[in-house]
């Protein structure tokens, strides 16, 4: 199996789906001539042409609104939002339109649309360009929220997302485009809404996704040296949320730490912890811990930024607290 980067895996999925289905097209800021602000669509414009790789005005409501409309009349647009921070300029269209149109009109409208976007901090971009607001979007029924943590998952989930008949927010992490991993070649598709065990273990269950997976894997390597075996569950999709592997693992370890990059309050960790308490209370041997971002707007200064973001050491400390 080829070892490729997250960027290559995403690019491969897009390319293959565009080759396979003429109704798939890309629109967004700088996706064409420029080649994508994170270079994911490099080479697409020359190969697929300006009709299928459309450079848009800087107008997020128009980008998402137009993608919704095109999807409703039978196309499969993949809209790129340069960063998830710009999703707020099109928040209304994502949560008030895309997420509701199928239900609110009694099932007659379909919105087979993917919004590819980039989230996360760690690149010294300041508070408005470094957010991880994944949980906000996961709050809305009708929307699907996908956030892969490995190149293989990125490819398989993006292919599934493009083929889905529902609106999907596909969140890539800004600091993970160079992450390498083995990715199956050809038509590799992973069903949406399935959590998975990324590392088996017996002592503590880590529930995480996206960047949190990278941090947790490193923590697991460190703790293994001390004889502590973490079992890491990667959620991969925040909605629909598959809790089965979480409960299965927790019933074995009776201890859990949730690792996410977003803020702690009202976050993914809050949701996971609540579900564990509600549905697996008899198996709880220690309080569920949450490792998350400090509750500050992320600062520019490198040291301060890293201080606010969750680190490997934070995961290790949390694991030791629940043991």
């Amino acid at each position, binding site marked *: 199996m080829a070892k490729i980067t997250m960027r290559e895996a995403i690019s491969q999925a897009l390319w293959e789906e565009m080759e396979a289905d003429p*109704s798939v*097209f890309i629109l967004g800021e700088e996706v064409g001539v420029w080649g994508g602000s994170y270079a994911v669509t490099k080479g697409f414009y020359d190969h697929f042409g300006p*009709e299928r790789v*459309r450079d*848009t*005005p800087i*107008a997020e*409501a*128009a980008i*998402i*609104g*137009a*993608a*919704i*409309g*095109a*999807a*409703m*009349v*039978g*196309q499969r647009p993949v809209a790129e939002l340069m960063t998830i921070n710009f999703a707020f300029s099109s928040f*209304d*269209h994502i949560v*008030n*339109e895309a997420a509701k*149109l*199928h*239900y*609110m*009109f*009694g*099932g*007659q*409208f*379909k*919105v*087979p649309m993917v919004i590819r976007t980039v989230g996360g901090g760690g690149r010294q971009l300041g508070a408005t360009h470094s957010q991880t607001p994944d949980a906000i979007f996961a709050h809305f*029924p*009708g929307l*699907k929220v996908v956030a892969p943590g490995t190149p293989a998952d990125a490819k398989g989930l993006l292919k599934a997302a493009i083929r*889905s*008949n*529902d609106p999907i927010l596909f969140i890539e992490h800004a600091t993970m485009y160079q992450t390498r991993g083995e990715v199956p070649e050809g038509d590799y598709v992973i069903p*949406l809404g399935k959590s998975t065990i990324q590392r088996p273990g017996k002592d503590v269950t880590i529930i995480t996704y996206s960047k949190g997976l990278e941090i947790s894997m490193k923590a697991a390597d460190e703790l293994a040296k001390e004889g502590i075996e973490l079992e890491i569950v990667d959620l991969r999709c925040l909605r629909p949320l598959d809790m089965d592997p979480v409960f299965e693992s927790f019933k074995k370890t009776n201890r859990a730490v949730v690792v996410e990059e977003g803020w702690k309050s009202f976050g993914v960790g809050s949701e996971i912890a609540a579900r564990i308490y509600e549905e697996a209370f008899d198996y709880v041997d220690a309080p569920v811990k949450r490792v998350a971002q400090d509750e500050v707007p992320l600062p520019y200064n490198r040291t301060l930024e890293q201080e606010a973001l969750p680190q490997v050491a934070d995961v290790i400390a949390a694991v030791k607290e629940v043991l």
Partner: protein
Amino acid sequence: MYYQMVLIRRVEERGAELYQQGKIGGFMHLYIGQEAVSTGLIAARQPQDRVITAYRDHGVALNCGIPSNQIMAELLGKVTGTSKGKGGSMHMADTSKNFWGGHAIVGAHLPIAAGFALGDQYGHRDNVTICMFGDGATNIGYFHEALNLSKAWNLPVLWVCENNLYGMGTAVERASAVSEIRQKAVGYGMPNERVNGMDVMEVYEASKKAIETVRKSGPFLLEIMTYRFRGHSMGDPERYRKQEEVKKWEENDPIGIFRTYLMGKKIKEAELDEIEANVDAEVIKSVEFAEASPEPTTADLYADIYADA
């Protein structure tokens, strides 16, 4: 067209009664006074042309050919309604009639309409998207993003501003830097026209031309001047306009104007009266249908959240 205009008037009047009886809930915005706008406009479309509008949508839905039964049933929240009772007054649609809603967030459907036109252009189809909105929607960013995109990509969309002079209770000149809305199209290099929306024939002729212009050469903005005889919604105290103003407009009743026009064309009064009697019968039946229709169930509550199985 006469049948349609009278049908809209009667459905809305009956709807207002049912609202007052508590049988219709939520927000309801009546189309009384504005009937000529969508009647003339939609009569001018080809079957492949898509229509999308804002929340004042009952009349538009009727003109697209949705049976009054389904509209009344939706108002009463029944499963036989256009949206299976889940949309209500502001969210009616029927894709089989090329009516794409009924959208309640002011201006938000304009980028979506641009998207319909994009999807059709991308698919090399000759559909035109007819997107209706009020004067109030032209002050929100969505309007400008959508108009700009439509012109930049030359999308086949007809922008139709139903200018009824008030965005809720705020007069257009108090809210908009230019009160002649068509001028906003000029900034986007877009051809435009302003017509009298109380005269259905004038609306029809202008729409016919505008739709074919769009099909041939890209986006166009049509401003149709009109007036709503009732409040913005059912809960409107109407402190913002004088009764004399409303009365003056009521003298320009679009149905009356069209009736006079038809009689001038030697159509007998008895024929028009018969049309009205047929409308009354249809409306009575639609209420009976809606009242007799079943309520949605708990299973319906969880149906259609996602399209994937």
